[in-house]
């Protein structure tokens, strides 16, 4: 037997759970002050998340998918991106979307069952939230191909969950991205659960990063609760892609701290102890400790931050709640670029509303 190929998967972490640096920090992280925007964004994400859950519980929002505990993944990846990159998110990437300029009221409109929530005024080329698991991975390949063909700068950054890596669409996407050498990056937000399915029930593979080997592209694992590690790994993946070296996969290890969505009850299938044990790895506390230890963050700053953020969120909620619904006939407005004559009669009928004949 001859050895014809060999592969290794590496894991990256800069801050341990206590916020102590365990490796030399990457350039962007050496000045602690430069990390404050990341901290702020993670706190905003968590506060926004809590508000959304509260709105749902009080009947003012639909089903919502919380990203509690996963803030470092979602903020870290967005922080590494440039405006010309394109984000293709799941429903659990509010942190990345907000960083990139999606407005809070837009996200609320989306979760409130209103299509206008996906008409982002900020990142116009970013994709809307994708619900069918893994299907957006293929869009990323198409976007990346378009960028490459048009000689436009930018990378397609696709985020998906651990469950998504069992889906054929994920694999077809990384395989195409590999062989076409397009500027794409696949971030697997491994929160250890796909609704009630634990990570170990999805695949016999020891890491999700090794899925990349099937596509002949690099795969790497990072501590997804270490925002520095996430941002650093994503920057490197983006640099590769920008340099024409093609796509890669990053597996970010984190943990889903709450129910799958507000419609779920995780106590049916996982132990409370498993969850509470994970708080020790909290990404926000970790960065706060790191900043505080470096003298770059005070109680006072924290209080002011919370206050500002709360104000921003409350204002966004108000704008959301003040948005009247679209008229019923709007359901035909964007069916086609120009509505064919064959549909006019139905549009008129619809304009009378659901209760009418």
């Amino acid at each position, binding site marked *: 037997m001859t050895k014809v190929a060999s592969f290794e998967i590496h894991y990256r972490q800069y801050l341990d759970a206590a916020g102590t640096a365990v490796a030399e920090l990457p350039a962007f992280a050496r000045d602690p002050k430069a990390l404050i925007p990341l901290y702020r964004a993670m706190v905003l994400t968590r506060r926004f998340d809590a508000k959304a859950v509260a709105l749902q519980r009080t009947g003012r929002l639909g089903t919502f998918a919380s990203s509690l505990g996963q803030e470092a993944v979602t903020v870290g990846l967005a922080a590494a991106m440039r405006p010309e990159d394109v984000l293709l998110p799941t429903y659990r990437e509010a942190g990345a979307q907000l960083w990139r300029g999606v407005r809070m009221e837009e996200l609320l409109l989306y979760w*409130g*069952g209103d299509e206008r929530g996906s008409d982002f005024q900020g990142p116009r080329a970013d994709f809307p939230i994708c619900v*069918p698991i893994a299907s957006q991975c293929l869009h990323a390949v198409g976007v990346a191909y378009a960028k490459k063909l048009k000689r436009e700068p930018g990378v397609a950054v696709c985020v998906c969950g651990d469950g998504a890596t069992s889906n054929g669409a994920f694999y077809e996407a990384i395989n195409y991205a590999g062989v076409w050498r397009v500027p794409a990056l696949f971030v697997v937000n491994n929160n250890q659960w796909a609704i009630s399915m634990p990570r170990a029930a999805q695949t016999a593979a020891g890491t999700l990063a090794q899925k990349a080997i099937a596509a002949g592209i690099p795969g790497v694992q990072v501590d997804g609760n270490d925002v520095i590690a996430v941002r650093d790994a994503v920057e490197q993946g983006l640099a590769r892609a920008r340099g024409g070296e093609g796509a890669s996969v990053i597996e970010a290890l984190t943990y889903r701290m709450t129910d799958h969505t507000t419609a*779920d009850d995780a106590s049916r299938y996982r132990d409370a102890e498993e969850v509470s044990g994970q708080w020790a790895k909290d990404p926000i506390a970790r960065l706060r400790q790191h900043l505080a230890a470096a003298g770059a963050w005070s109680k006072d700053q924290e209080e002011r931050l919370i206050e500002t953020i709360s104000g921003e969120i409350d204002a966004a909620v108000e704008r959301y709640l003040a948005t009247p619904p679209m008229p*019923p006939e*709007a359901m035909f407005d964007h*069916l086609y670029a120009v509505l064919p004559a064959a549909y006019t009669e139905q549009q008129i009928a619809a304009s009378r509303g659901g209760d009418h*004949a």
Partner: protein
Amino acid sequence: MPETTLIGGVNMALARALSEDERVVVLGEDVGANGGVFRATQGLLERFGPERVIDAPLAELAIGGISVGMAAAGLRPVAEIQFMGFIYPAIDQIVNHATRLRNRTRGRLSCPMVLRAPFGAGIHAPEHHCESTEAMFAHIPGLRVVVPSSPQRAYGLLLAAIRDPDPVIFLEPTRIYRAVKQQVEDDGAAMSLDDCFVLREGSDITLVTWGAMVKETLAAADRLRAEHVSAEVIDVATLKPLDFETILGSVEKTGRCVIVHEAVLTGGFGGEIAARLAERGLLSLQAPVERVTGYDTVVPLFRNEYHFLPSEARIVAAARRALAFA
């Protein structure tokens, strides 16, 4: 006799099938410890163990294709697709394999499998959780397409589907999963997959429907009764193969017909029924067949989905038009 809901009827049938036939297995995403996102499989893992109540990795094409393999090898898989909006990757296995294996091998291999999926809008859920594309399946030769609309029919039809020697798509109307309770005896009695159900007899007009729209259609029939119109209400239940004779018989009696479904109008299964009525019932029809359906557009997100769904008022209005036609 215990009272139960439609989803309860599903659960009872699954438990019954698992206990009476060791070839039956249940598989799907979150069907194990979680008991299914709607609790259709609640309690099954505990009773029948993880070898027969199988949590599946996140891949609907695989759920379809693996079920084909299981069925051909002698099991009776009952697979859950979490929502109909995620069934599409499995269509390939349904069209190209599940429905053809018997014919392709002249009966040597066969494919007794059931693919269950919650379907329909109106539950205030995110996008893709409100599909009703049953017509796509009703067009596939070799398939059975079954839609229960009461706890009793959920139980009886699902048992029949599981015992059937050929592939069945079993679509469960999410909106009425818990709408009513009914006494359902767990007696193992399957219902026929070859017959429509006449839910209410009438003489002036025939209302034909299935799934969650049975609710609005019965309400419309009530409203019409108050106007002294006697409406016959038919729940098609098994769309494929279609028991057209029952529908035709009713329309020959009443002379008028309204077909109600939640799916979009164009290419919906109501078109097939209306076409057959026009072919074979032309001389009995005293008015054009009316179709009351979802509009020909993408189901709006939930804030406006209600405007998309056929309402009791629209059904009543269509019936009145048919009755007024001369």
